[in-house]
């Protein structure tokens, strides 16, 4: 593997090869030379994505013990378990860039790494399990389908696996709501209330508007990102409005209407003050999510230490047995 920064002319040559590879739409693989900034951007993005999967277990985990039927309980458990699995694939993808999982955990614990702000909103009723699946997993899919074509090979391949499960999650969430809107008045109200609370935060999941987005331009050039925040947000709105109509629910946006000329739905302004407030740590559940994560991490320390100690003991015993054999 070429060592970075060893020689300026070398680096320029490598850069040319790298740029040409991106240009040809070929995947960059872990052993390939890549610019430092590309590597850093990927580590930041993939680990942030992994952290989101893991922290994202909490709002839905909040309803596992209260799922209203055994069928729903099993489905929800399986869903939250899938998210843990997504976290694992993504941490592995990040590790191919030369960073250890423990370091990534530490960044999250120290508050240096971010996760998706959507998980800082509370899940208040059972209908939220429907709305989260439908909207949050739905918004995630928009982003993740794009990422199946991202330029970094291990990230793209992790996404292919994840996308299959995410679309299942989305259908599962939608089906929860479909069931509720066919039910009693109280159940319908519950579904509408969930949509009211989750709609705008879901639109914020795509990040700042293109003109404000700091990382976007370079990420597009490197084909890490292949669509802009606003493009993805629009695609999400266009896909979701008809689904809300099928449910008979009203999207809480008086400005929402079909624009014949653009061939897209127009929608009202996003409350960016709220967006930044939550990003910067003052959302409704930021503290709770981190407290929950930190507590689990700390309480698990003795288990991880013991598992390591046992593995070492076992290894030593095996070696001792081997040398005994050799002596004999």
């Amino acid at each position, binding site marked *: 593997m070429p060592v970075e920064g060893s020689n300026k002319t070398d680096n320029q040559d490598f850069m040319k090869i790298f740029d040409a590879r991106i240009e040809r739409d070929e995947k960059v693989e872990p052993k390939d030379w890549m610019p430092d900034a590309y590597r850093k951007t990927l580590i930041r993005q993939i680990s942030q994505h992994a952290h989101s999967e893991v922290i994202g277990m909490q709002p839905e*985990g909040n309803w596992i*013990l209260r*799922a*209203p039927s055994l069928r729903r309980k099993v489905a929800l458990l399986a869903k939250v378990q899938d998210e843990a699995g997504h976290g*694992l694939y993504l941490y592995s993808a990040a590790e191919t860039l030369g960073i250890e999982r423990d370091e990534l955990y530490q960044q999250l614990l120290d508050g240096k790494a971010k996760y998706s702000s959507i998980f800082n909103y509370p899940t208040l009723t059972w209908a939220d399990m429907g709305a989260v699946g439908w909207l949050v997993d739905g918004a995630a899919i928009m982003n993740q389908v794009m990422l199946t074509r991202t330029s970094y090979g291990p990230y793209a391949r992790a996404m292919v696996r994840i996308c299959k499960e995410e679309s299942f999650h989305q259908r599962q969430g939608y089906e929860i709501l479909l*069931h509720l809107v066919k039910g009693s008045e109280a159940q319908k109200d519950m579904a509408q209330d969930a949509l009211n609370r989750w709609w705008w935060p879901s639109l914020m999941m795509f990040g700042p508007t293109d003109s404000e987005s700091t990382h976007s331009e370079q990420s597009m050039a490197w084909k890490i990102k292949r669509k802009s925040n606003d493009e993805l947000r629009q695609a999400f709105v266009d896909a979701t409005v008809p689904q809300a109509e099928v449910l008979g629910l009203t999207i809480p946006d008086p400005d929402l209407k079909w624009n014949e000329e653009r061939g897209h739905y127009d929608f009202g302004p996003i409350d960016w003050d709220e967006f930044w407030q939550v990003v910067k740590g003052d959302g409704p559940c930021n503290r709770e999510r981190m407290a929950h994560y930190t507590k*689990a991490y700390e309480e698990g320390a*003795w288990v991880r*230490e013991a598992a390591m*100690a046992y593995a070492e003991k076992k290894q030593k015993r095996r070696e001792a047995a081997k040398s005994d054999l050799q002596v004999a």
Partner: protein
Amino acid sequence: MDNSLSPNQALFNFALHMGDNTLIAGHRLSEWTSQGPALEQDIAITNIALDLVGQARSWLSLAGELEGKGRSEDDLAYLRSDREYTNFLLCEQPNGDWGMTIVRQFLFDCYHFELLNALLDSKHEQIAAIAAKSLKEVTYHLRYSSEWMIRLGDGTPESHKRMQNGLDERWRFLGELFEDTETDKVLAEAELSVLPSSLEEAAMNRIEAVLKEATLSQPEVKHFQTGGRKGIHSEYLGHLLAVMQSVPRAYPGQSW
């Protein structure tokens, strides 16, 4: 009253008991989801929870059929009080730390594994079928909990202390697993199930072997706690059910 227990009534009691054990054990494990000691263990323990709740669905559906009053798995899970639940006290005990949870699960797995093996020969087709499906899963549960017993028992001084403490604390619920009730006698007579007492030797042999490898000592208990199968539970079950049943109780008669 017990003398007049009909085979069908006994079958219902048994299916309900199996459903309650697996549901309550699975529910407890699912409390770990999102707070396991590592991501891999979070996934593994959730998997076991999933298996157990899945098994509970089979047993409770069977119980509903046997009863013949049109009660569904959800009616039985969500609309019975703690006094009507017949799970073992062991299954409802709080998780405590990871070690305490592993101890509870291990003791239950040793019993569960032997029972399911025996139920493969049940003359009741559905019982044999549920047992066959469950046994594949429980074989893995037992391997998982045994490995963790050993790993933590023989890990660090701290993990050893915690495991011994967990064992000392949970051991008093073990005796109940091997008690024969009227239900068991009726079913064993008809070769539909077996006497729990007949499982004790094999289960205890396994427990002893694992404890030995884990460098843990077997606690001595003067009196075992019992009562679960009669609906006399610990104080914990009422709280567990209050949470679990909250939505269907708040919106009676709705479908979810």
